[in-house]
């Protein structure tokens, strides 16, 4: 079922680069009064020649892309080799193995206390990376499902034998009050209407069900250093909104969730890509910036160590929030606590 929302994007127009774009009001508070804080291009995949503007809402402080690609543009901005569709062991070797280990540890923690026959849904599951980990390390009785709107991702995930609902979480109509745990891992920043997506997830959760949200943290050192253009978390033009602890808390509360636990965790990606984007933008030779990609163990290792130092101060690169449907949790303001 499609959730009608407050959003009234103007009819989409074509950008100068030929992409359907739309202007939007703040996805959190609905106001149209924001200050531009960054301008950048698609430094990673070069899917368009357009430039993009990240703005900060003057009322609720949410960061959002405006204007942004309209729904009709999604095929164009997610290329075939987009990492979430094609994180294959063959291509990523050692990195795949290490990442699987690390993610397995996190996932197990989020799954702690789940009943034997729990029903779990991964919203924005991509090629099913996390679901496969759960299948391998979780309990055999768990019923695992995924949701993703990208046909390419759905095909890959189904090929791995996973049960996937094709479409957005608003569209697919998950059975109400049915799930013990929902995951939204690096998903919330991509969806056009975060409140509507969260509302759809909330309906699907059992009364005591939980939702784990993992998203980029826009309150970090690399954001402050690179935030005017090159910050990796912008991922122009695919991240439609970006959160810090306060705005994520406010978004959860606005969607009727309570925050049960919130923390930041280590990820090398944003800091590494900030540097890479800077080098790409300055026209550095590929030899140099190729060291700073998802398939480079050296880059990933180095930036993991750097981010671990940040995470110890509660400023890790990703925000992880465990939300509960009850809505009785408190809304956190300010910094999240340190990892663990």
């Amino acid at each position, binding site marked *: 079922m499609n959730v009608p929302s407050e959003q009234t994007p103007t009819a989409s127009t074509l*950008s100068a680069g030929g992409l359907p774009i739309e202007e939007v009001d703040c996805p959190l508070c609905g106001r149209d009064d924001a200050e*531009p804080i960054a301008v950048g291009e698609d430094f990673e995949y070069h899917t368009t020649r357009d430039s993009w503007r990240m703005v900060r809402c003057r009322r609720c402080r949410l960061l959002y892309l405006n204007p942004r690609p309209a729904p009709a543009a999604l095929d164009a901005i997610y290329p075939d080799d987009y990492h979430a569709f094609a994180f294959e062991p063959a291509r990523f070797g050692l990195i795949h193995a290490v990442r699987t280990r690390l993610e397995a540890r996190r996932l197990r923690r989020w799954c702690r206390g789940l009943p034997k026959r729990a029903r779990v849904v991964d919203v924005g599951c991509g090629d099913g990376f996390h679901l496969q980990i759960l299948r391998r390390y979780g309990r055999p009785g768990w019923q695992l499902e995924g949701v993703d709107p990208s046909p390419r991702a759905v095909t890959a995930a189904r090929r791995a034998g996973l049960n996937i609902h094709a479409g957005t979480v608003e569209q697919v109509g998950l059975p109400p009050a049915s799930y013990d745990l929902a995951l939204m891992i690096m998903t919330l920043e991509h969806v056009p209407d975060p409140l509507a997506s969260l509302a759809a997830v909330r309906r699907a959760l059992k009364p005591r069900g939980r939702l784990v949200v993992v998203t980029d943290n826009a309150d970090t050192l690399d954001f402050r250093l690179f935030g005017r253009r090159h910050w990796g978390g912008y991922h122009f033009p695919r991240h439609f909104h970006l959160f810090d602890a306060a705005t994520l808390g406010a978004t959860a509360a606005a969607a009727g969730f309570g925050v049960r636990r919130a923390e930041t965790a280590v990820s090398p990606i944003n800091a590494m890509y900030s540097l890479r984007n800077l080098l790409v933008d300055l026209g550095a030779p590929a030899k140099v910036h190729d060291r700073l990609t998802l398939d480079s163990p050296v880059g990933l290792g180095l930036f993991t160590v750097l981010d671990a130092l940040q995470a110890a101060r509660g400023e890790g690169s990703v925000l992880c929030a465990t939300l509960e449907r009850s809505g009785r949790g408190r809304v956190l303001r300010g910094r999240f606590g340190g990892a663990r």
Partner: protein
Amino acid sequence: MSARTQPAPVVIVGGGLAGLTAAHALRHHGIPFRLFEASDRLAGLARSFRDADGFSHDFGAHFITNRLAAALGMGAECRTVQHYGEVVRLGGEDISYPLGLLGVPRFDLSAAWTRLRDAVRSTASPNDAATWFRHNFGRALADEVALPLLEAWSGQAAERLAPAVGEKLPGGLLETLWLKLAGRLTDRAVAIGYCGALPQSASVWHVYPEHGVGAICARLAEGLDDAVTLGTRVQRIRVEGGRAVSVRVEDDELPVSAVISTAPIHVLPRLVEGTDALERFARFRFRPMILANLNLEGRHLLSDTVVWLPERGFASYRVTEAPISMPWLAPEGKTTLTVDIGCEVGDDWWTASDAAIAARCLEDIAPLVPDAARRHRSHRVLRTPIGYPLFMRDYESDRLRLAIDGTGVDNLLSVGRNGAFDHLLMEDVYCRTLAQVQPLIDELLPAVRAA
């Protein structure tokens, strides 16, 4: 009237950048409006001219920023301006602005002396432009450079101008140094002192749309055809009980819920009837300008994009070679020098023929480009009676009141460069107009949603 009928439209006076920015914002929120433009085309001062022989001309060296381009979804059709620089011509020598001026010992000494003296002898804050410049720049730099330029540009004695003229200059030295350096390193003309409403940074630089700077107005006007009427002047704005209630266009009376005017503020009192709240703006003055675009053989005839001419010998106060920054504005091997002449409507500059103006300008710039006359191929002379708002001390308090309190009629906004009476460049016009229209949108939105 039932709560369900659509409220009367907002009327927008003028289809320049400010009027179109307002229109675009109202359309986004579904607020009904009508826009009337007196001339037969949109864009106003942001209009671009294209000549058959391949030269493009704007009102001066017009460019925007990559940030404004991104706001309009136009990034992909904008070219990066790689370099922009200004020099000051003194004693036959071109000194770069602002950093080169710091290397002139007599300017530094005099500035240091002024600082010292003013620190000891606590002086009242300056209340005219002459005192302001002498206080902030030192007497030598003020008297040799800043004040002669100010006077040639404005046609007024600096003592009669408000200090606000000076306060418009770009901020800190260290920041300027860093931004200049960043521009060098990235091969981009980083915007310095261009936009007051938003922070400057190494990530904001100048760009120019493929189809001329007027393309940004065309972009904003997309999809607004049903509400835009060209060749139609708003003749009257009727105010009753302190609120604008209707406008007269083509001898019809059109009810309005609000009026957003981008007309020059000094004509607004003549348009408005039913209140004398705006009378105080009638004496605001603009400096008329002639921009003589001389198309010449050759390129890089000046030492940098803009040459300021403070010395008395020149009729012009500024010459610009826009193709140094934007090579695409002229065919290869050719260039355009734009000579700015401050004048008065009806004086002998204003009434001279284009050819006579071109001839006088070629002679004027001979010290810079000795063979200019031989290189001259063609010209296009632009005249505008509203080149720059003049901040005269006589009405400075009224000017400040306009900025703070608005027009004195609640639902009558006066926005844009001429409406707000401020030296706004395009990104500021865009930002300021959005900010000024926001409260009106908040006020009208509930009624529109209810209808």
